[in-house]
């Protein structure tokens, strides 16, 4: 009867659930204080000490139970499942699932797309967040502006997907376009405006991006040859990885810059944006950038506020212009926070599922790992490969996990 009315059921559960929690804590406390180790009699002192040794575990038990059963255990269980085959009754099959996965084009597509997401979304969100944080720092309506840019944080990935599907909507050429992107697109006709906005501007952006990547890659590579750098052996793979990734990115962006000029652009034809290979990935990323910029902005804004005013004033007295103040005084001081924001958004990106699921469901070469995994799990019913792809996600998260734990421990000391 209760289950007929979800509202009533919910209320019932709240009362029962919360009541049970509180009752557990209260009565378990009473039990050890009054029954097990009463603070009376000849052993009062010893009993109190014993009770105090047990009490932390009473307080911790439900949380630890939940954490262990729902987060720690599944990591190992998923690892085990990834080595078994469901259709063979859960027999151990070694790395067969991984091999099968590696042979699927869809998997490599998901990996490639995930890499793109991992580079573009954190970078764009952090950059926009930093920009907004800095711009709104000193203006009177800054808080109002920030709260509007922060707002997408409250919107679900699914809701955001609907919002952006409307933007990317396509109608036949002879109808009014109701998607903003196509409406704008049809304004371009190959004239001088199009050249500036669709060829010159992207080229400049891509070139600027290449320069930034080259600089970052160089700062990493320099450590191998330059003196006075940490030459620890474990840093070498990292440096090489960054260098290779940098070269790859530069290659892609220079290629794209060239492509902007030689590709025949279909002016005047409405585009189905979400089916354009490669481009559609970026259209999906825009959704997440739109959401995550607010997060980056809030944290970076607080960090900017935390910069000692004196350092900025000293720079002004030293004759720095606003851009120098921003890049040479402020950004270096909040570098730690920028890294935190970057890694946090990276985590979100690795888990991104809803956006792809709702907008393209991985079609038209937009697959990502999280959706690939869901696909394997609940459509193909292949738990082995599903688990294997989950383990891949876990592997990608692990460096951040280690880094976070390391930092947290350092901070506690």
């Amino acid at each position, binding site marked *: 009867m209760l289950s007929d009315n979800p509202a009533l059921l919910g209320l019932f559960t709240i009362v029962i659930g919360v009541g049970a929690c509180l009752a557990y804590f209260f009565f378990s406390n009473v039990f050890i204080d009054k029954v097990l180790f009463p*603070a009376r009699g000849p052993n*009062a*002192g*010893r009993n*109190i*000490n014993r009770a105090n040794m047990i009490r932390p575990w009473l307080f911790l038990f439900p949380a630890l139970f939940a954490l262990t059963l729902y987060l720690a255990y599944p990591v190992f269980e998923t690892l085990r499942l990834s080595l078994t085959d469901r259709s063979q009754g859960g027999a151990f099959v070694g790395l067969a699932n991984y091999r099968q996965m590696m042979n699927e084009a869809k998997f490599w597509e998901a990996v490639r797309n995930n890499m793109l997401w991992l580079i573009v979304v954190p970078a764009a969100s952090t950059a926009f967040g930093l920009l907004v944080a800095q711009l709104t720092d000193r203006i009177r309506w800054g808080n109002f502006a920030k709260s509007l840019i922060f707002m997408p944080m409250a919107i679900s990935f699914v809701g955001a997907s609907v919002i952006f599907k409307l933007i990317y909507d396509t109608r036949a050429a002879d109808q009014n376009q109701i998607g903003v992107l196509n409406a704008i697109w049809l304004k371009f006709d190959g004239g001088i405006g199009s050249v500036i906005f669709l060829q010159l501007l992207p080229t400049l952006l891509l070139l600027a991006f290449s320069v930034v990547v080259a600089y970052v890659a160089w700062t990493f590579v320099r450590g191998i040859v330059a003196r006075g750098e940490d030459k620890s052996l474990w840093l070498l793979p990292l440096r090489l990885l960054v260098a290779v990734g940098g070269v790859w990115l530069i290659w892609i962006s220079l290629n794209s810059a060239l492509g902007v000029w030689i590709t025949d652009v279909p002016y005047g034809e409405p585009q189905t944006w979400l089916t354009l290979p490669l481009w559609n990935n970026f259209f999906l990323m825009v959704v997440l950038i739109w959401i995550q910029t607010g997060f980056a902005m809030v944290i970076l804004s607080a960090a900017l506020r935390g910069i000692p005013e004196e350092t900025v004033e000293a720079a002004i007295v030293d004759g720095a212009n606003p851009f120098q103040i921003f890049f040479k005084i402020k950004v270096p001081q909040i570098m730690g926070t920028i890294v935190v924001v970057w890694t946090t958004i990276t985590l979100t990106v690795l888990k991104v599922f809803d956006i792809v699921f709702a907008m393209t469901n991985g079609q038209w070469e937009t697959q990502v790992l999280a959706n690939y995994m869901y696909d394997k799990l609940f459509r193909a019913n292949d738990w082995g490969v599903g688990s294997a792809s989950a383990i891949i996600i876990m592997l990608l998260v692990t460096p951040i996990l280690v880094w976070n734990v390391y930092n947290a421990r350092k901070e506690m000391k």
Partner: protein
Amino acid sequence: MTSLSLKSVSKSYGAVEVLRDINMEINAGELIVFVGPSGCGKSTLLRMIAGLEKITGGELEIDGVVVNDVPPAQRGIAMVFQSYALYPHMTVYDNMAFALKLAGKSRDEIDRAVRAAADRLQLTAYLDRLPKALSGGQRQRVAIGRSIVRDPKVFLFDEPLSNLDAALRVATRIEIAQLKESMPESTMIYVTHDQVEAMTLATRIVVLHGGNIEQFGAPLDLYERPANTFVAQFIGSPAMNLIDAKVTATGSQTSVVMSDGGHADVPIASLDSDKGATVKLGVRPEDLTVTDSDDFLVSADVEIVEALGETTVLYFRPKDDAPALIAKLPGIHKIAKGTSIRLTAAPEKLHLFDGEGQSFLYR
């Protein structure tokens, strides 16, 4: 009437020993001040008496009962914290009533106790306020009131004045002195790093340093007869001058000479074996006077003159690697920088410390 006794109490965190072998008998009605530089363990000792830190060795007795394992609330103590530790979400009244409520006292009883304490501390008008609406001095009084309400056997104060500004600190210090006077039977232990508070409030002072008790005695005892160079330099401001000296004659009085030709006959007994030993001659800056005679203690060049009106403080250029010498002369003295001056002091104001820094008096 409550007495406390600490029997070779010690405290260590793992391998680090912060307090060792503390022995102390505190009589009922005393106001004991723990004083010492920061990190000396004085706050830890207080917190061990409160029961906030476990005692890792030895025994703590309150009224003859070992309380090592008794939780704080049942030791009959009340504590006033440096930060006052007022509950920010409770009114002044609730702050003072909290402990009594926990103890299950009746509503009338609580009300009576709270109002009596508030009345005594002129807090009646503020009973409905939250702590954030009070001034620093008022918060301090609430913290004290909260401890009075519980009618404890022992009051513990942990640097209660260090968050107040200078003027308020003096006023509150006097209030605490009056409070103590109005409750002659209650025992109080007070931790501070400020020797003025220690000297003015204490019936007896415990000087702690590096986890050891350096000296335990009445305030003026510590000033006049410091047990070692640490206490000698810690009590009194500016600190006592310590001059290297060589013992030339021993007996019921001891003669010493200094490297610059100064000499002194100190009315402190010494042993024959001390003869020829290098000792420290201690003399407080305020005991030094200027002299022209050849019968001087030290001679030195004036480096800095601080004319304060009430006193004139002279800083002398140290000879070789000896510590700087300071003299505090009453009144105004017109002395130019660089002048060479001879100083002397009454023999009974002199102190002698052996090579380990222990006073000759306590050997």
